[in-house]
């Protein structure tokens, strides 16, 4: 850091604007540097007192652009923590690298944005429900810098015009809610003039002591975001009674320091939004959506007074194609880092990106330093867990809500893994069922009951065969009847006779088949119960068969003799009646046997 031997003359028009919102203090410094030394200089040092440095959450330097200009995407200047020699130890330094070296007499203007958290101190520290909340802001009216300052002014913007007290220096003006110090000219380096502003602030002091965001990617088309908040009201502690009556009657007076709701700006097309906590769903929330954004308004279960805590979880799904891209054969997720909540200070933020199982070659790109490590998470249908990239950052402010990228390799085929697992699971289940149904798993193959059971199964199989034969006989009868009907329609006696012949042959065969079955049944002891019925069935069927044959012969005879249809009908009428009765009996018997 030899450059420090050379003195910079800084012509600094530093308008230090400090809007003190909630727990955040944004300080914006607009400065112009001019090199007064002989050498080219490319680094500029920024100094912060210890107190501020501890609370600093965010620091960004951008080249200044003229007012009214169309905003181009501003390229931030690189800022690094510096540790220069020969400087007071109580100060923390950051160095800003200028885009090009600054020669003697050159000037360059740039903006520095620093965000501080926990910089406002509530005084008094405890208030009752009816009190308003007062906070104290401390800073220096003179711009603290290792360089000499030519011109400088400070304006403090407050949320409300009610100011309890403020340090009065020369050149102090107050404009509504804005206090302006300066301009001061030609200040030596490291000049410091402490100021304190004590003012009313009822803006929500929402501080997330811990926020765990889990972003889970499913290649089936969804990015699921789950955010677990542990929230505290970071303002003045409430003391004494909480009266619901007062709060109901005049919430803006008796409960001015409390906040009742939070707003989250979710990405567009967010769906399946939920809001719950450990003990269940919280029903007080509203969701409004349009094509630009989805606005979620959530109310904690109770109004948040100073020091009160709450914890909750919000979750939402996002369409995959909005956040997942591909480049060079690698996929990358491009999503915002921090919470979608408006005006929320996060003490510790943990972002977990859960990649699909089988992802490899994982790398993260973020625009600010984060702690990083990997875990695995076992979720639905995982065999060895999904890789999880964990990013941790403390002291996070809305300015950190920038996009970051997670690159990884994932083969499309791995997507099929889980459905295939499910399918094979069901497949094996059914196979097991089939095996169980068909396998003989009894232990003792020689026990009486087992043998009896087997015999009974054999008997059942035989009875089944008998039934089949009988029903085939019955179909043959039906065919014969059909041939008779054909005869009456066409008068083709030959066809009818042929049908008769075929039927005769078939029936003979069937009765041959039936014989061994019947002998088996007669020999088997376990068939003793059913045997009479089966025998009756066979007998009835034979009777039926004979009757059908007789009827058939009669009708064919009649046709051969060219008798009138009515005549034939009269002849067979009696037979027909018997046939019907018999058929009924056979059917009944079949049914009875079926039910055994």
């Amino acid at each position, binding site marked *: 850091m030899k450059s420090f031997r050379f003195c910079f003359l800084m012509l600094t028009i530093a308008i230090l604007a400090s809007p003190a919102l909630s727990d955040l203090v944004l300080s914006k410094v607009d400065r112009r540097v001019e090199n007064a030394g002989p050498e080219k200089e490319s680094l500029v040092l920024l100094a912060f007192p210890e107190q501020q440095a501890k609370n600093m959450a965010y620091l960004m330097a951008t080249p200044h652009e003229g007012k009214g200009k169309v905003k181009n995407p501003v390229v931030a200047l690189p800022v690094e923590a510096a540790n220069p020699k020969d400087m007071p130890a109580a100060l923390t330094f950051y160095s800003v690298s200028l885009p090009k070296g600054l020669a003697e007499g050159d000037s360059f203007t740039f903006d520095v944005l620093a965000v501080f958290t926990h910089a406002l101190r509530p005084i008094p520290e405890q208030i009752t429900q009816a009190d308003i909340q007062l906070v104290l802001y401390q800073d220096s009216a003179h711009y603290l810098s290792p360089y000499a300052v030519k011109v400088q002014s400070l304006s403090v913007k407050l949320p409300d015009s009610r100011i309890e007290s403020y340090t009065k220096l020369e050149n102090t003006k107050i404009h509504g809610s804005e206090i302006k110090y300066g301009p001061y000219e030609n200040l030596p380096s490291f000049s410091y003039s402490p100021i304190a502003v004590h003012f009313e602030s009822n803006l929500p002091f929402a501080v997330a002591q811990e926020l765990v965001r889990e972003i889970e990617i499913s290649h089936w088309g969804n990015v699921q975001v789950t955010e677990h908040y542990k929230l505290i009201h970071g303002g003045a502690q409430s003391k004494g009674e909480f009266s619901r009556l007062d709060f109901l009657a005049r919430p803006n007076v008796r409960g001015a320091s409390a906040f009742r709701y939070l707003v989250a700006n979710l990405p567009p097309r967010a769906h399946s939004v939920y809001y719950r906590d450990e003990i269940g769903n919280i029903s007080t929330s509203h969701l409004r959506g349009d094509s630009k954004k989805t606005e979620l308004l959530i109310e904690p279960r109770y109004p948040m007074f100073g020091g009160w805590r709450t914890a909750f979880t919000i979750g939402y799904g996002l369409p995959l194609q909005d956040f997942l891209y591909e480049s060079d054969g690698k996929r990358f997720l491009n999503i915002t880092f921090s919470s979608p909540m408006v005006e929320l200070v996060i003490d510790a933020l943990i972002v977990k990106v859960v990649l699909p199982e089988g992802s490899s070659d994982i790398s993260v790109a973020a625009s600010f330093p984060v702690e990083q490590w990997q875990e695995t998470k076992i979720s639905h249908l995982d065999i060895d867990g999904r890789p999880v990239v964990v990013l941790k950052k403390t002291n996070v402010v809305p300015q950190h809500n920038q996009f970051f990228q997670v690159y990884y390799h994932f083969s499309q085929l791995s997507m099929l893994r889980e459905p295939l697992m499910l399918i094979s699971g069901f497949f094996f289940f059914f196979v097991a069922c089939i095996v169980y149904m068909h396998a003989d798993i009894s232990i003792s193959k020689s026990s009486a009951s087992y043998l009896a059971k087997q015999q009974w199964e054999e008997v059942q199989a035989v009875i089944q065969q008998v039934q089949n034969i009988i029903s085939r006989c019955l179909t043959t009868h039906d065919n014969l009847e059909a041939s008779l009907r054909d005869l009456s329609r066409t008068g083709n006696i030959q066809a009818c006779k042929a049908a008769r012949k075929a039927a005769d042959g078939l029936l003979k065969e069937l009765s041959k088949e039936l014989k061994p079955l019947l002998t088996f049944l007669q020999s088997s002891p376990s068939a003793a119960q059913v045997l009479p019925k089966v025998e009756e069935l066979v007998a009835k069927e034979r009777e039926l068969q004979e009757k059908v044959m007789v009827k058939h012969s009669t009708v064919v005879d009649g046709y051969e003799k060219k008798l009138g249809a009515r005549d034939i009908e009269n002849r067979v009428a009696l037979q027909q009646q018997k046939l*019907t009765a018999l058929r009924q009996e056979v059917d009944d018997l079949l049914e009875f046997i079926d039910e055994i």
Partner: protein
Amino acid sequence: MSNSYTSDILKPFKLKTKQQELLIRVLILCLVYILAFITRLFSVLRYESMIHEFDPYFNYRTTLYVTQHGFYDFWNWFDYESWYPLGRIVGGTLYPGLMVTAALIYRLLHFLRFAVHIREVCVLTAPFFASNTTLVAYFFGKEIWDSGAGLVAAILIAVCPGYISRSVAGSYDNEGVAIFALLFTFYLFVKAVNTGSLAWGLASAFGYFYMVSAWGGYVFIINLIPLYVLVLLITGRYSMRLYVAYNCLYILGMLLAMQIRFVGFQHVQSGEHMAAMGVFFLMQVFYFLDWVKHMLSDTNLFQEFLRITVTCAVAVGGIALGVGMASGYISPWTGRFYSLLDPTYAKDHIPIIASVSEHQPTAWSSFMFDFHILLFLFPAGLYFCFKRLSDATIFIVMYGLTSMYFAGVMVRLILVATPAVCLISAIAVSATVKNLTVLLRSKTKVAQIGSTKGTSSAKASSKASLDQSQPFQKNGAMALLFGAFYLLSRYATHCTWVTSEAYSSPSIVLAARGAHGNRVIFDDYREAYFWLRQNTPLDAKVMSWWDYGYQITAMGNRTVIVDNNTWNNTHIATVGRAMSSYEDEAYEIIRSLDVDYVLVVFGGVTGYSSDDINKYKLSYYRFGEMMTEYGKPPGYDRARGVEIGNKDIKLEHLEEAFTTSNWIVRIYKVKPPNNRW
């Protein structure tokens, strides 16, 4: 011709009647299984997946403990968050069946890589077991009557409001699994009696063990089964099958039940279990006599022997019982048991049992509400059972009659009667429908044949003659069948209506209709519990009436003085006294109990009537300034419909710490004592 052609093609695929029947039966069972599950999901759809009521919160909390710390830690858990300063030995004072079951399901699902939350498992345990109960009901029905009756029983029990009331999703209570265990044990025992198989006896012993581990209602089993055995002995139905079944169940069941610490040695030491033991010894005597009778051929000698043995046995038994009672080895019957036998007992002796609304005698309307048509199908089923008396039907008749009596004594015992009522009604429905269809089918068949054959006069005359022999029978059968279906469909509608309207409210979240017909949700309980959880010191002691104890520990995660496990009446009385005394006096008790917060439930703003109005001072604090209803004076109590008298209530030792948005829960902080006088 084409017709027959297609039928030839389809022949290999055509199912036989038996297979068809099997297919239909399995299909119906699957549908019933699903139906039983989904009809219990009203509460999840209407509200959310949450635990209901009071006791389930304790069960949920303990289940959480099992899954996080493992079984042995759970078994040895000393819970210092309840009954401050006494604490509670959880492992020894609960029935662990439910929690262990849920934890096992949870483990199994995680083993199969279904990463579900334990809460979802707990919420859905009761519907899952209700589904299983339908299967058991089917098999039980099949065992005592036929598969038709089994199917009807499965359908009836799937939607019966008496059972649904305790098994909707979220009602994570012992009864949810216990009814399954109860019916399963009974089924296995009846199966064992019917077959005489040692395997079934063994299974029934394990079923009994599961029941003992799940619910205190196991006492019903251990008294009903001996009674049943006794009846069989008296009616001369003693058999070797019965001997095997009962001895196996009793001995093994008893030994297994002793493994549950909450039950311990009660099977040999408590008066409630003595009946089972007596019957067990009686069985041995019976068997012995049977053997002697077999050995002795002389009947006179046997009569003599019988007289001596029976006298001796009875005398020995009586003396043993007397000595046991007198020496205090056998404990007398407990209050709850007495109050079952004598409904007025609790009112006179144990007011805390009588004070619980579900321990009240049942009103007729709630029988109608919970059983609907089953109420008159039940006697019809009893008639059919008596008509075809067997060991199994005797059992179901006894189960039905005793449980109906108990259901009349206590509202909550309708639950125990439900399976019996469903089974017996199923027998009635099945038998009736079967008779009617047989009647219809026998005739339709003739008619069918007549029409298909299409041949005219002779057939027609035969058909006519059949019809004439049974005039109007077919039409009558048809009408009755339609009537039965109409009644059953009314039953289904009623059940659905009851489930959706009466039994699906979580009672933690209250819902009401707003002025514009929109749904207004009062989530005050959880608001207050969550406030306690987040904004009080971790070791804060909360005093409330015992109803809210379990919820405060489970949702608020804070120590309570008394809770729903009302084991120490003195402690409860102390809290009750603190709640209803003047502030100065109460303050002393509160100090002595080391209480930090006092929680009261108050319905004066919303008209919620089940609140703690006897703590009126805390309830009405600053209520006098509140406008509750348009056109009424400030301080108008909507729950009681009056304007309160004393509107200017000042508190000295307590201060309002939190009141929920609808004033239902009010929490007061106990101020530390003044430093000086």
